[in-house]
C-alpha cells in the first residue's frame, strides 16, 4: 500500500495504517531525536511523543507535502521544545572533557581503536551541544542523519540557500570548538 493511502486511512482513524507508518519511520525519528539529545531513553520518549502528536494532528495534514517531512518537522520542533525546557542549550565547556580526547600511542587492538573512536565521537557531540540550537539542528539533519539540502529546507521551512549558509557556519563553528583537540599526528589530523 502506498504511503499516501496509509495516511488517508490513518486520517479516518485506521490504527493499523498508522502502525505501518510508525514501523516505517521509527528508526529515523528515533535517531533524529537521539542525535540531538544523546540519551537513549529521552530520545525514545521524544520519538514516541512525536508520533503521538502526528497521530492527533493527522487530520490537519493536507497530503501536499511528504508525510516523512511533516513527521520530521514535528520531531525537530518537539526536540527543540524539550531542549529549551531542559536548558540544554547552555554552553558546555569542552575543557572539562579534555581527558577523553587523548589518543593512545600504542593503540593497535581493534577494541581499543573503537573505544577511542567512540570517545572522539562523544567529544564531537559535546561540541555540537555547545553550539546554538539552530546549528545543532542543521548539523544533526545533514551530517548525522544525512538529509539532503532540499529535505532540510522543507523540514525547517527555510530556503535552500539558508540551509547552505547555516550549515557552512555551523561546521566552521564546530571546527573552531574542536580546534584545541585536533592534533597533527604522523602527517594526518586526529583527535
Amino acid at each position, binding site marked *: 500500500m502506498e504511503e499516501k493511502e496509509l495516511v488517508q486511512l490513518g486520517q479516518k482513524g485506521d490504527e493499523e495504517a498508522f502502525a505501518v507508518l510508525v514501523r516505517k519511520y*521509527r528508526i529515523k525519528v528515533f535517531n533524529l531525536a537521539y542525535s540531538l539529545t544523546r540519551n537513549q531513553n529521552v530520545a525514545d520518549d521524544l520519538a514516541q511523543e512525536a508520533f503521538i502528536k502526528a497521530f492527533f494532528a493527522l487530520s490537519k495534514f493536507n497530503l501536499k507535502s511528504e508525510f516523512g517531512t511533516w513527521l520530521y518537522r514535528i520531531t525537530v520542533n518537539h526536540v527543540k521544545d524539550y531542549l529549551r525546557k531542559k536548558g540544554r542549550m547552555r554552553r558546555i565547556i569542552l575543557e572539562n572533557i579534555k581527558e577523553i580526547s587523548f589518543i593512545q600511542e600504542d593503540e593497535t587492538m581493534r577494541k581499543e581503536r573503537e573505544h577511542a573512536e567512540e570517545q572522539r*565521537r562523544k567529544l564531537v557531540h559535546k561540541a555540537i551541544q555547545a553550539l546554538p540550537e539552530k546549528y545543532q539542528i542543521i548539523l544533526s539533519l545533514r551530517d548525522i542523519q544525512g538529509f539532503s539540502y532540499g529535505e532540510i529546507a522543507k523540514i525547517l521551512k527555510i530556503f535552500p540557500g539558508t540551509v547552505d549558509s547555516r550549515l557552512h557556519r555551523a561546521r566552521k563553528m564546530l571546527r573552531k570548538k574542536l580546534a584545541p583537540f585536533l592534533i597533527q599526528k604522523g602527517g594526518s589530523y586526529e583527535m
Partner: protein
Amino acid sequence: MKCKKIEKLLLRSFDDLLKDEEKENLESHLRSCLLCQAKRKEYETILGLLRKEEDSEPNPYFLERIQTKIKEREKDAVWTSVKQWSIRAVPISLLLVLLLAMVIILFSPPKSQELSQSEVLLLRNLNPLQETTTLLEEEKVENKNMMLIFTAMEEKNDIRRYFP
C-alpha cells in the same frame, strides 16, 4: 582565490555540490596552501566521525507503547473537553441570565398606575367627600366608630365599606 572563499568551496565539497570549475579551483588552491590543507583534514576528521555513526534502535515495544499512550490520551481528551465545556458554561449561563433579566426589564409592559379611591370616585362622577359627609352626619356613635374603623382599613384592603 582567498582562503575564506576556498573554505566555502571546501565545505560544499563534502556534500558533492561543486561544479567542475569550482572543484578545479579548490584542488589547485589546496595544492599550494598548507593552511587550507590542514583545514580539510580537520573537517574530514570531524565529519567522518559524525557520518560514520550507525543508526540505533529505540527501546523495545515502541509501537505498542505509542498505541497505549494514544488510547489513554483519547480517554483523557473526552474528560478534558467536558471540563473545558463546563468551565465555559459558567460564565456563559451567567451572561444569559443577565441578558434575560435585561430583556424582561426593558420589554415588560409598564405597570398601570393605581388610582386613589378619590380619583376613582371622581372618574365615576361621584362626590369623593360623600363618605366624609356620611360619617359626619351619622348620629349614632356605634355606627360612626364602625365607619371610622372600616375607613382606616381601606388603605390596606380593598374591602367594602360599612354603610349602615
